[in-house]
């Protein structure tokens, strides 16, 4: 269980947003939306304990995160960053193996059992065949899945994903979203940020919208992601329509 209470976030002296109350439990998908620069990444970094909260607190499993060690946090919560090329050409398996770090003694290196866990995580996501490939030479979607596999190998019940579908083509985007849905069904708690409200409609059990230095909306996708709210947050006229199959999609409003 991950909770933010009256959280203020920011870098150094700059306050980005405040008054944020959120909660995420296992089996839930919390989707974070907001315009560029609203503070989605700052919020993630604060939730992960990578930068200190400017006010309020983040609690993980009932404990304030600043009382936890890195190892304790890593066993409870895994981070899936946006996939980028790395300086060193690790194999996919070695990269996923790094997810085992929090389960190793301080002076230990991974053993056979850790390699098995890493391979199982890759198999879970359907990319075991890539295990010995250079992680810098696979497609963007595969690399993103590889980072998800690393988070699974971490054996943490909560996953924090920073724009997992950004810069992916249609096929890879759908692939990643399908995996997120499967993870939810397996009982993981997932918080992910996106620029696409349709993804939130489709996947999220809860939605948080950050805009203008505050939590602009928080609740179920249906009640949060209204045309009115999206129009005001993004500054463009949009409306939410239902497709014949019943899915909600965001479209631009006809000009009046």
């Amino acid at each position, binding site marked *: 269980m991950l909770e933010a209470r009256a959280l203020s976030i920011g*870098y150094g002296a700059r306050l980005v947003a405040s008054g944020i109350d959120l909660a995420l439990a296992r089996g839930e998908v919390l989707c974070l939306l907001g315009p560029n620069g609203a503070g989605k990444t700052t919020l993630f*970094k604060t939730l*992960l*304990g*990578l930068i200190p909260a400017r006010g309020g607190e983040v609690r993980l499993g009932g404990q304030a995160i600043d009382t936890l*060690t*890195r*190892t304790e*946090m*890593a*066993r409870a*919560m*895994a*981070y899936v*960053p946006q996939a980028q*090329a*790395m*300086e*060193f*050409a*690790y*194999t996919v398996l*070695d990269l996923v193996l*790094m*997810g085992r*770090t*929090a389960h*190793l003694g*301080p*002076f*230990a*290196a*991974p053993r056979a059992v850790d390699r098995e866990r890493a391979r199982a995580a890759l198999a879970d996501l359907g990319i075991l065949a890539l295990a*010995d*490939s*250079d992680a*810098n*030479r696979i497609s963007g979607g595969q690399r993103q899945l590889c980072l998800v596999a690393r988070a699974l190998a*971490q054996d943490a019940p909560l996953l*924090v994903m920073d724009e997992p579908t950004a810069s992916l083509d249609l096929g890879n985007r759908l692939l990643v979203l399908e995996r997120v849905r499967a993870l939810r069904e397996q009982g993981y708690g997932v918080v992910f940020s996106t620029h696409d409200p349709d993804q939130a409609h489709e996947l999220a059990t809860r939605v948080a919208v950050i805009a203008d230095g505050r939590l602009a909306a928080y609740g179920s996708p249906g009640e949060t992601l209204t045309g009115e709210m999206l129009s005001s947050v993004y500054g463009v006229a949009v409306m939410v329509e239902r497709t014949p199959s019943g899915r909600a999609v965001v479209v631009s409003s006809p000009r009046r």
Partner: protein
Amino acid sequence: MNTDRTPRVALVAAALVVILAGAMLIAAMLGPYPATPGEALSAILRIGGPPHGPIDTILFQIRLPRVLAALAVGAALAAAGASYQTLFRNPLVSPDILGVSAGAGFGAVLGILLSLPVLGIQALGFATGLATVFVVYGLARALRSQNEILVLVLAGIVVGALAGAGISLVKVLADPYNQLPAITFWLLGSLSGIKPSDVQIVVPLVIVGLVPLVALRWRIGVMSLGDDEAKALGVNVRLVRGVVIVAATLITATAVSVSGVIGWIGLVVPHMARLLVGPRYDRVLPVSLLMGGAFLVLIDTVARTAARIEIPLGLLTAILGAPVFVWLLARGRRMWS
């Protein structure tokens, strides 16, 4: 590249152990008074004990200490280079990136200027090398930037340049007939003055510096993903970084204070190690140690036997290192692209 590198690592390590042993044997045999393989091997196995004849005396007093020093210095520089490259996520950094070499160089040439005994020169070089890194680290922390590594490296360049200016000043002040040649030769790198007592200081200090690097090998490798990812994976980034910087600086300063400035090893050897066993630090470190040690043992043997005068080591490593590095750049671009 589809390869499981695990069996290959063992093979590479075993081959390097054989090469290193062979290099040490050859180094022990060659010199103004050549030894047979049997004499050299028997002396290596009995080192520290009483000498059995004149060839033993030469080997114990002169040649083997020098071989051991070359082994320690080469291994130290390669290990420090591998550590800094992983820590700073940059394959182009070398052990002197934080100004260690320039700092230690300044102390040592100052020692020569002040006509200190050899041990004094080494101690002063070691002290200023360490002091330089503390100044660099303190400066980087005082500047408090978001990008800690960039500031650290820039501070290293600035302080290193300042130490370089200090070296120039010492050269200007030095007696041009006596001290200046000694300073120049020292700055080019040499193991010609090594005594058994030096080895007794250098080897333990290098080992002390290597212990935390070996112990934390996995976490140091994870640091190559960047601070945020390493923290989220459970690494105490600040602690591990501090340990790596202190340990790698200790072994670099130790090496520089006895051998002078020997470039290229810390840059090129880790690259070759990555080419052989991939980028994992827990594999690159042992391979770099063996390779750096064997390389400098061989280079130093060439330096003292190839010509009638001693060839400076820095000269030989540059002549070899520069083309090898260009070749690595051309061939191994994928290692970091």
